[in-house]
């Protein structure tokens, strides 16, 4: 994964710079999401791995599939990836692009796992508190997980704030060992 990120970084930053110039970060984000979905498809990846399929055929196929979603620049990008044999990087590029975008727009994607469903009001309150703690705007994604027993588990990038009963029990288990 780490090596892939190193390879994907120049592509992602180039795409992001271009998207910023043309003011089309949202469109690029959608495009990349679609491309990565297509290329992660089992059948497509088997096809691309097949040595009998030439680069040109593969490119034609992908361009056909993506036709509706991809404009001139998008197809140029795909051509470049095919030319450099880096099609497999597309999902890493997408992830990096999303990080750059989030950084640029000043928000973080936060995954909140709870044991019980939030009420709308509680959700807003919690989001406000989190924004204060992380001192950044957040895009919150709430997941329900009964195995937490109680409390919440917040995941923002690498950072994890564990206020769940499960987490505390695990912590206690370790301390008592």
């Amino acid at each position, binding site marked *: *994964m780490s090596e892939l990120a*190193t390879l994907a970084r120049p592509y992602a930053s180039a795409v992001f710079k271009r998207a910023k110039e043309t003011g089309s970060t949202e469109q690029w984000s959608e495009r990349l999401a679609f491309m990565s979905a297509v290329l992660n498809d089992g059948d497509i990846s088997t096809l691309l791995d097949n040595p009998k399929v030439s680069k040109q055929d593969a490119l034609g196929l992908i361009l056909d599939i993506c036709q509706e979603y991809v404009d001139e620049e998008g197809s140029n990008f795909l051509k470049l990836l095919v030319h450099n044999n880096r099609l497999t990087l597309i999902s890493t590029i997408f992830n990096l692009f999303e990080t750059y975008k989030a950084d640029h727009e000043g928000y973080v994607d936060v995954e909140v796992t709870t044991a019980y469903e939030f009420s709308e009001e509680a959700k807003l309150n919690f989001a406000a508190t989190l924004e204060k703690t992380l001192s950044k705007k957040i895009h919150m994604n709430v997941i329900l997980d009964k195995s937490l027993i109680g409390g919440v588990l917040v*995941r923002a990038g*690498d950072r*994890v704030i564990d*206020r769940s009963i499960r987490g505390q029990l695990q912590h*206690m288990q370790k301390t008592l*060992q």
Partner: protein
Amino acid sequence: MQLNPSEISDLIKKKIENFDLSSEAHTEGTVVSVSDGIVRVHGLSDAMQGEMLEFPGNTFGMALNLERDSVGVVILGSYQHISEGDTVKCTGRILEVPVGEALLGRVVDALGNPIDGKGVIDSSETSPIEKIAPGVIARQSVDQPVQLGLKSIDAMIPVGRGQRELIIGDRQTGKTAIAIDAIINQKGTGIKCIYVAIGQKRSSIANVVRKLEEHGAMEHTIIVAASASESAAMQFIAPYTGCSMGEFFRDRGEDALIIYDDLTKQAWAYRQVSLLLRRPPGREAYPGDVFYLHSRLLERASRINADEVEKLTGGRVKGKTGSLTALPIIETQGGDVSAFVPTNVISITDGQIFLESSLFNSGIRPAVNAGLSVSRVGGAAQTKIIKKLGGGTRLDLAQYRELAAFAQFASDLDESTRKQIERGQRVTELMKQNQYSPMSVAQMSVSLYAANEGFLDGIEVNKVLDFEAALHLYMKSEHSELMERINATGDFSNEIKQDMQTAIENFMKSHSW
């Protein structure tokens, strides 16, 4: 150790009372690859160099390589259960080990966990394994001796408290034997000893422990063992672990002696870890920082002044200096001291005790090569009486070495040359000493005095050691008061000289050897 049920529940109660229920915020990453004890972790964006990282299954690792997209981690212990995708947590702490008095008499691994089956170690204090050595202001010069109890070393290559004296030699030349004798001789002196065994056979470590127990030397000794079967990472950190345990005593105004047996193997372990972390190899495939590996370790052996001790103890200990003396051991291959690691460590230390296999095989044990061995700072720390009496020994041996080649033409030599050769032979013989029988300052003084004043000249070379043994026995039974006086003060006055002269003269009359 047996725990009764109430103790267990009390323990649990206490732990629950102290249990920190605050939310646990940490940074997480995922394992990308596992190979030969090296794990690459994605994420962990705020991991520190040397930070302890927690893996599943109560396993810990140490972050050594912080790269753009990943962190290179060495696993401390077994890594078989770690697989790709596992979660890794930052602990926010640099690797720490338990320190304190409770460790004395125990055998621990490189993380400070007991491995001697004597139960948990009750030490509340911990200390990071990597610390910066005391600064210039905190230090004091070396002026008190550490008696190793070996005539040849205490007389010619004295070691002071806070000194770093390298023990270097090929395999099977008695390097460990010197170290063990040194530990045994610290019994009752208040010097705490730490023996760090790196990459040795478990059987050898067990032997050392048994020998120390037999001689009652375990009470003041901690053994840190990273045997050959343990991971390279454990062997790499073991010396730092031992050093932190020694610094505990130093920083409390006590004296400690640490033995690293041996640093060659630690360098090998570090080389392995470095190559697996893909750091570029340099000379002999060691990484670029192998000098720093040893210099930062040995720099921590030092003598600190009373002010510093007072500061470190928060005023509890006043007017006492602390010291950590280091005896690193380096094993050479075929006597080659110009290899990479030996030259490095020679240049770092304050002198070396050079052991030679040829001497060892010809029966001169300890096989100290008096010509190549030096102590750069120990002279100032030497006990006065040994300094006075031992000064001649070095000279006698040096002159003897020059003339030894002519020894076979003894009959054709002039009187003075022959005398020098004979003196040299006897002094060489006198420098021999059995293992596990360290000598007191008084015993050494008597032997050296006898040699200096020519009492040995009339004795056959192969009888010298018998003579010495009988002399010691005689002094012990007839002049124990004199011996105690010498041991207590260490001074060499005219009065003591006179008493020794008469005592030895009386002994000579008895011809009882």
